[in-house]
């Protein structure tokens, strides 16, 4: 891998390797919490924080953690930061805690966090790892924000509490429900595929980011 400047690493995570829309990692929170733009941002920022901190610590400890037990070690570090975020959000933004529900502790098993720890932080310098965490976090937040915006406007006719579509027109409530989540996500990925057509052939990043890629490749191709 060629050396990249920190800025490039940061931008890489936001656009070129957007974790949600290009690498297709962390699908569960993407689909579950994007019923409104506000929830999307809340989840995105929580993940951004966890990702940056865990990348920092894992990069710091990369020589100390032995190779055999690295996955449990990473998970414990990540779970620690998730608990910190959970307590902070419960204290300062209880309504976000309520709407994110069980998905807040589930950041622990978000493929993005573990995937970046395994793929990037365990191999790169501390500064680059932190930048990667911030970039990936912003990319994730942006993707969630996009999905949340689409689903909120179509599903409720309002945006951040402001009525956009006149109330006389019935909003398409299905976009707020589970099927709408799958549908919007599918369409968004299709759009990204369409506009990035001139890029080099698709790599199977979805699987490479997964810590159990070896087992996964045996089980099936694609996915995480």
């Amino acid at each position, binding site marked *: 891998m060629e050396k990249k400047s920190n800025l490039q690493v940061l931008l890489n995570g936001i656009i070129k390797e957007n974790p949600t829309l290009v690498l297709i990692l962390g699908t*569960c929170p993407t689909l579950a919490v994007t019923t409104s733009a506000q929830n999307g941002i809340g989840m995105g920022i929580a993940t951004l924080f966890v990702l940056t901190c865990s990348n920092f610590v894992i990069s710091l400890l990369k020589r100390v953690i032995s190779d055999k037990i690295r*996955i449990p070690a990473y*998970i414990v570090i990540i779970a620690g930061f998730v608990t910190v975020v959970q*307590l902070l959000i419960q204290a300062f933004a209880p309504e976000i805690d309520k709407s994110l529900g069980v998905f807040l502790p589930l950041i622990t098993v978000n493929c993005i966090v573990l995937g970046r720890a395994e793929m990037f932080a365990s191999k790169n310098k501390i500064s680059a790892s932190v930048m990667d965490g911030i970039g990936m976090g912003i990319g994730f937040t942006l993707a969630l924000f996009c999905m949340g915006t689409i689903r909120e406007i179509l599903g409720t006719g309002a945006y951040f509490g402001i009525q956009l579509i006149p109330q006389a027109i019935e909003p398409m409530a299905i976009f707020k429900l*589970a099927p709408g989540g799958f549908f919007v996500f599918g369409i968004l990925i299709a759009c990204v595929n369409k506009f990035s057509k001139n890029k080099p052939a698709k790599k199977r990043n979805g699987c490479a980011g997964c*810590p159990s890629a070896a087992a996964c490749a045996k089980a099936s191709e694609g*996915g995480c």
Partner: protein
Amino acid sequence: MKEFLIILMSAILVDNFVLSKFMGICPFLGVSKKLDSALGMSTAVIFVMVLATAATWPISAFLLAPNDLSYLNTVAFILIIAALVQLVEIIMKKYLPALHKSLGVYLPLITTNCAVLGVTLLNIEEQYNFAQSIVHAFGAGLGFMLAMVLFSGVRSRLEGSNIPESFKGMPITLIAASIVSISFMGFSGIVENLFR
């Protein structure tokens, strides 16, 4: 008995873990290409879900909650699940090599499956007792299996169809999942009326 049936049926049909709670989407999209791998993965998930619940519920109820340590639930549970999966794999390899051969490849994937951590956390959140938790975990696993098996059929049909270039791969799979999910919405309300 009725209460258990309600928990079981609503976990399978109404609050299906994959299609309405969005947990375990990664294996749902990744391993549902063939029927036998979908079955293998979901059997392993049911197994680990029930075991993990049986291990985490007592620890939370008798160790963490009385000592005011409930905020450690996430850390403790993920550690227990990771250790458990490893342990199951070792035991299975030694004593049940045939089963290990068919389920073995799926086991390491399960540690990072959010459905397993999700079900253990939800059991605590919903304040289920031990028996209810086990039933809930079993139901959630069965629901996962139902969704996987149904979806593997849909996907094998997708393989041969003519799909627009930019929809190939993940997008069309997600849209198919959306349609399967709509069909599951038809079950809402069924449980209350079934056991009234």
